[in-house]
């Protein structure tokens, strides 16, 4: 789960990480009031969406589709600028490299005091899966895509790892600061910031903190100009405050509903719906559909605890996608019994008036009983015995590469 920059910076303040003064706004009048109260002549007017690449994004009018402004993060040199920029941002569609072409409507802004930048750095804290520890990664090349830096200038990236029980070591922090060319009070501030951010990472159960850019100002202060924070959803149970920072408009409505039902659903662009048990098998089912010339419409794992209700809901979610022209059900029964799934499939088809072709593959627990139930029903369902066969069949039924 991700949070907005303004929320992340609030968290930074709580942990003593230096940020500029800033105010969260939801309208042009908010933005102007924020400008007046900040008292800084130069401010940044920043669109608040979860996707990255805001600065280079383009804003469009959501109704007419006309381009409104280039850049979702703007530097305003006057009150008039603030008015113009916030008007162009608020309620419009921001399309960035990461949002896809459908973009995101911006309903939150952040107005932040300007600062005199001397140098831009990059700083991130994340989980290193291979070393099974928390990694701190910093680079002298701030403001740029870290993947590009890793590709073209890997020696600019410096890393230290936290000890799982002891945390960050002082000498590691000092050497990281040193590798970034920091000295004097900048270095002291950098080391303090590393410790504060690490404490926040642990206390708030983050999955990622990224600051790009982290700047050294002309007076030598180290300031987090941007803030991207991801939270580990597995830890939601011990962080009830997350309900308040969660922005549901940033999540696909249907993905939230699916999640509430114990389903794991991700919408894709194809026309073959998939209903599968198990994340790996669900991915493999999509892959095999593609391998035989089809395009999967979704990832859907009904999970180990699926019931008739959740399976009916799963069908409903698949069918809400207008692109769906056929459905492949692939169940390898373990705890889930294929006969239970078969009955749910029949009920769901009746209840929802299923019209698209349906191919079902059962294997594992009670697969024969499941197949018998489907074959004896009055609804036309194609039963197959392998995933391969199922994928070929559904691709064939909807007419191949359409």
């Amino acid at each position: 789960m991700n949070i907005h920059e303004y929320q992340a910076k609030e968290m930074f303040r709580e942990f003593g990480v230096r940020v500029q003064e800033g105010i969260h706004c939801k309208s042009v009048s908010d933005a102007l009031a924020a400008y007046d109260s900040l008292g800084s002549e130069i401010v940044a007017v920043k669109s608040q969406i979860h996707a990255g690449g805001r600065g280079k994004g383009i804003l469009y009018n959501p109704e007419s589709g006309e381009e409104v402004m280039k850049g979702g993060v703007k530097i305003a040199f006057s009150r008039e600028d603030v008015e113009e920029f916030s008007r162009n941002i608020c309620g419009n569609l921001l399309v960035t490299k990461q949002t896809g072409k459908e973009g995101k409507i911006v309903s939150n802004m952040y107005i932040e005091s300007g600062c005199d930048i001397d140098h831009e750095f990059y700083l991130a804290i994340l989980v290193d899966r291979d070393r099974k520890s928390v990694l701190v990664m910093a680079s002298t090349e701030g403001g740029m895509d870290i993947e590009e830096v890793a590709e073209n200038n890997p020696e600019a990236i410096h890393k230290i790892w936290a000890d799982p029980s002891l945390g960050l070591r002082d000498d590691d922090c000092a050497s990281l600061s040193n590798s970034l060319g920091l000295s004097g009070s900048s270095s002291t501030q950098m080391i303090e910031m590393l410790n504060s951010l690490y404490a926040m990472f642990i206390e708030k159960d983050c999955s990622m903190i990224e600051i790009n850019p982290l700047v050294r100002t002309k007076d030598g202060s180290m300031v987090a100009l941007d803030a991207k924070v991801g939270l580990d959803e597995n830890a939601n149970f011990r962080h009830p405050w997350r309900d308040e920072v969660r922005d549901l408009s940033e999540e696909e409505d249907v993905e939230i509903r699916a999640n509430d039902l114990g389903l794991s659903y991700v919408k894709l662009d194809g026309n073959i719906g998939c209903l599968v048990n198990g994340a790996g098998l669900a991915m493999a089912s999509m892959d095999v559909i593609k391998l035989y010339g089809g395009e999967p419409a979704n990832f859907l794992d009904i999970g180990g605890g699926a019931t008739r209700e959740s399976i009916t809901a799963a069908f409903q979610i698949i069918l809400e996608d207008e692109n769906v022209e056929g459905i492949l059900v692939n169940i390898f029964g373990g705890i889930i019994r294929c006969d239970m799934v078969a009955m749910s499939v029949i009920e769901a088809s009746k209840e929802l008036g299923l019209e698209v072709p349906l191919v079902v593959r059962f294997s594992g627990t009670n697969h024969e009983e499941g197949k018998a139930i489907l074959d004896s029903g009055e609804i036309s369902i194609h039963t197959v015995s392998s995933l391969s066969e199922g994928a070929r069949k559904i691709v064939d039924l909807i007419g191949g590469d359409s």
Partner: protein
Amino acid sequence: MAIWIDEESKILIQGITGKQGTFHGTRMVRYNTNVVGGVTPGKGGQEVDLDGRQVPVYNNMKEAVSETGADVSAIYVPARFAAAAIHEAAEAFDENGGGLIVCITEGIPTLDMIRAVDKVNEFEKVRLIGPNCPGIISPGLDGGCKVGIMPAFIHKKGRIGIVSKSGTLTYEAVAQTMSVDEGQTTCVGIGGDPVSGTGFIDCLSAFEEDPETVAVVMIGEIGGSAEEEAAEWVSENMSKPVIGFVAGSTAPPGKRMGHAGAIISGGKGTASEKFAAFEKAGIYVARDPSEIGQVLVGALIEAGLRES
């Protein structure tokens, strides 16, 4: 022979009186798995009926291990208590000659797992499998040893090792070996979380040393670089044929595909990179999991282990 568990293994169930613990414990006993006890704090002294077998409950792992001499533990406790259960099991096994911890629980916070794995690594003779995995099974002649939630009846004792990040896809791989009349030595589900215990290389290396295993099926998925590292290890160390599949070729970047670890981030961890690494390492690749059986047969023939 098999790896890590066999019919002699003595199993404890952490969370035995819970719904999951009792449900799966019953199925483990039904498969003739030697379940010797369980742990639920506060319920020590009780007994649990698992398919007609009366199994003692202990208050903590230290007591359970020293009373029963168990060397394997299956964890079915809820996510918020699971890391503590791993710590407890690790310490108890360390004091009693070592053991294997199999954590089935899904949804454990990543930072909890970092600390739990670090704890387990303190002890040379303690191994952790999982979390968020189907467990491990070594089929025997009459039932076998099943520590986890997999459907036992699809397995048969044989000579193929299986290691996989995914649950149901492991079952698919098992079914594929069965479709070409090959059974399994041991099947290990290592789980799909970003931070977990036993990895591909641990399993591959154990299968390489196991005299009964002649070939290994390895199932990976998008995210991280464990498959690439395993492939490199295979090319340098593995004398037995390895058959590989990677799930997630069609997964869009930046989206978590069910498993917390199954995410392509910053263009890294894609299926095509992993398949390429497999091919480079001389791993026999199946692009469709329904073809694992056929690819396995080809590999066995090439190694002189099968006629046709």
